[in-house]
């Protein structure tokens, strides 16, 4: 098989090919390492780890030869820079974690390696996962492998998991880990024609994942197909004693759900997601998704989630508040960058000033402000009360018999690099208008490619499920994938 053929395989096909000995894990890893080297213009990887990759692939080949292959044996993956990887660059794409190499492994990546996966390198992202365009990385922006038809202008891949999404779309890894605090898996997946799932809060352990907003952060995969996302999530998810918010619910048979009938499932269409000024293309995409699910036997019902419009402003109080607390640990003492000062307070201030980028600093300042004396009740407590109402909206819809909710994934296709540079932060935040409610309520959300816009850029739909019912999302996601097909960018890099 040629190198291009190898990197075109889905994870399910890799599994079959390796077990049939059609190629070796080493061949496959070498093909990916070559494609990564040829795609450095995309800036998807911060660090490539070829030696580690080849030694893991060799170990996989030995296991396969002995007939001891595990669930992800020999599958080459990219890892978002937010996950601690033992002895390997882990900086959340921030300058403040300069030279940090953890002496431990995150639970999610440890689960993947225990299942035989191969690490290709660490993927670029928005600094501390704060951003919707992957333009806040200390290591520079990621370029979307997709371009508008007839244009060479670079587009953003979305964020914060922009490196993960770009690498999967450009076939620089078979699948990738990602994280989602307000839409950071689903929005970049939609911008790159890939599949991304943010599982239920508590499904994947947060241990060893650099914290942004602890009550909202969840890890999940980005992959090329619904089935591949299901395979990866099965390995990433676990119940972990090291994360007290990891929930004691057995991990489901996600791949087994792929291809199951959706007949009789009730799909809620929330009227509040029909925004003023929403583009006709997004509306048409949504209607197409409704038609596909209806044809497959699902029942469509109109629902109301009345507090939807308050999710984004409430999120931009809650998430910065938690971030300001979590990021207090970066003080130039225990790890990372240190910039000297005349006393210890000046050392802290200089270190944090030089180490954090503008977006991160702004969120820390907002978080510090809304948690400060006199403002705590007016902002933070009020936002948390509104979060209760947002969650209640979903609870009521599910109690009324809705199995899943269908919405657009993003309000638009990918936009140009630096296009939002002069916009107010609030305009950038609007990218997450359809995804952020899901984090606020702790629910699982799947983004699946559903079509191309008039400039031939991918657009995605989002399915939102009941807590710990990821299987339902995989069933429904496969119906959309079957109807819409899959989308691959033309190679220009």
């Amino acid at each position: 098989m040629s190198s291009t053929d190898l990197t075109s395989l889905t994870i399910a096909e890799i599994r079959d090919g390796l077990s049939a000995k059609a190629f070796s894990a080493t061949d496959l890893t070498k093909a990916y390492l070559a494609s990564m080297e040829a795609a450095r213009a995309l800036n998807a990887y911060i660090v490539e780890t070829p030696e580690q990759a080849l030694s893991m692939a060799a170990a996989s080949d030995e296991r396969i030869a002995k007939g001891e292959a595990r669930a992800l044996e020999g599958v080459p993956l990219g890892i978002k820079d937010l996950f601690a990887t033992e002895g390997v660059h882990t900086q959340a794409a921030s300058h403040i974690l300069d030279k940090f190499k953890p002496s431990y492994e995150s639970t999610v990546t440890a689960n993947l390696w225990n299942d035989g996966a191969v690490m290709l390198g660490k993927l670029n992202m928005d600094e501390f996962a704060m951003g919707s365009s992957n333009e806040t990385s200390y290591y520079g922006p990621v370029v979307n492998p997709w371009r508008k038809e007839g244009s060479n202008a670079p587009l953003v891949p979305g964020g914060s998991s922009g490196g993960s999404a770009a690498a999967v779309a450009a076939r620089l890894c078979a699948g990738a880990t990602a994280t989602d605090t307000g839409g950071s898996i689903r929005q970049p997946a939609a911008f790159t024609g890939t599949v991304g799932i943010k599982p239920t809060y508590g499904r994947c352990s947060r241990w060893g994942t650099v914290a942004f907003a602890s009550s909202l952060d969840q890890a999940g995969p980005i992959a090329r197909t619904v089935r591949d996302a299901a395979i990866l999530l099965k390995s990433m998810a676990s119940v972990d004693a090291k994360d007290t918010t990891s929930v004691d619910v057995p991990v489901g048979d996600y791949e087994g759900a792929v291809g199951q009938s959706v007949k009789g499932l009730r799909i809620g269409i929330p009227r509040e997601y029909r925004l003023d000024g929403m583009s006709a293309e997004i509306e048409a995409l949504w209607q197409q998704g409704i038609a596909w699910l209806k044809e497959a036997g699902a029942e469509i019902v109109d629902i109301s989630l009345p507090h939807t419009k308050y999710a984004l402003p409430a999120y931009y109080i809650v998430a910065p508040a938690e971030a300001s607390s979590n990021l207090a640990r970066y003080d130039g003492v225990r790890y990372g960058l240190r910039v000297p000062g005349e006393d210890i307070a000046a050392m802290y201030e200089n270190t944090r000033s030089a180490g954090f980028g503008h977006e991160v600093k702004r969120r820390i300042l907002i978080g510090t402000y809304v948690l400060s004396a006199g403002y705590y009740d007016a902002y933070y407590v009020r936002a948390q009360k509104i979060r209760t109402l947002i969650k209640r909206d979903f609870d009521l819809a599910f109690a009324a018999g809705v199995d899943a909710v269908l919405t657009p994934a993003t309000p638009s296709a990918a936009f140009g690099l630096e296009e939002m540079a002069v916009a107010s932060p609030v305009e950038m935040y609007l990218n997450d208008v359809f995804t952020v409610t899901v984090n606020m309520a702790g629910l699982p959300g799947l983004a699946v490619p559903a079509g191309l816009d008039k400039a031939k850029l991918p657009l995605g739909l989002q399915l939102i499920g009941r807590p710990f019912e990821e299987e339902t999302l995989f069933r429904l996601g496969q119906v959309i994938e079957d109807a819409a097909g899959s989308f691959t960018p033309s190679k220009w890099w």
Partner: protein
Amino acid sequence: MSVDIATVKRVAHLARIAVTEEEATSFQGEINAILGFAEQLNEVDVDGVEPLTSVVAQTMKKRVDVVTDGFYADRVVGNAPVSDDDFFMVPKVVE
């Protein structure tokens, strides 16, 4: 509500982030845009609503109170910018 420049500087000091005059001005505009966006939260009647503390109805798990980890101070200080004899080193704090 909106913040003035003195408040931005006070909050930056609380957060231990040194800011220049120019940065403070930029942050002031951005923070006020976000606080302005959050104003709409005041439209919502939250009387009698409990603040959300956990999205999952689960009692906090408790570990058995035993030592399961540790005894590797060299690894703990291994990433420190400055360390000496397994201690983190900081500028003098007590005269």
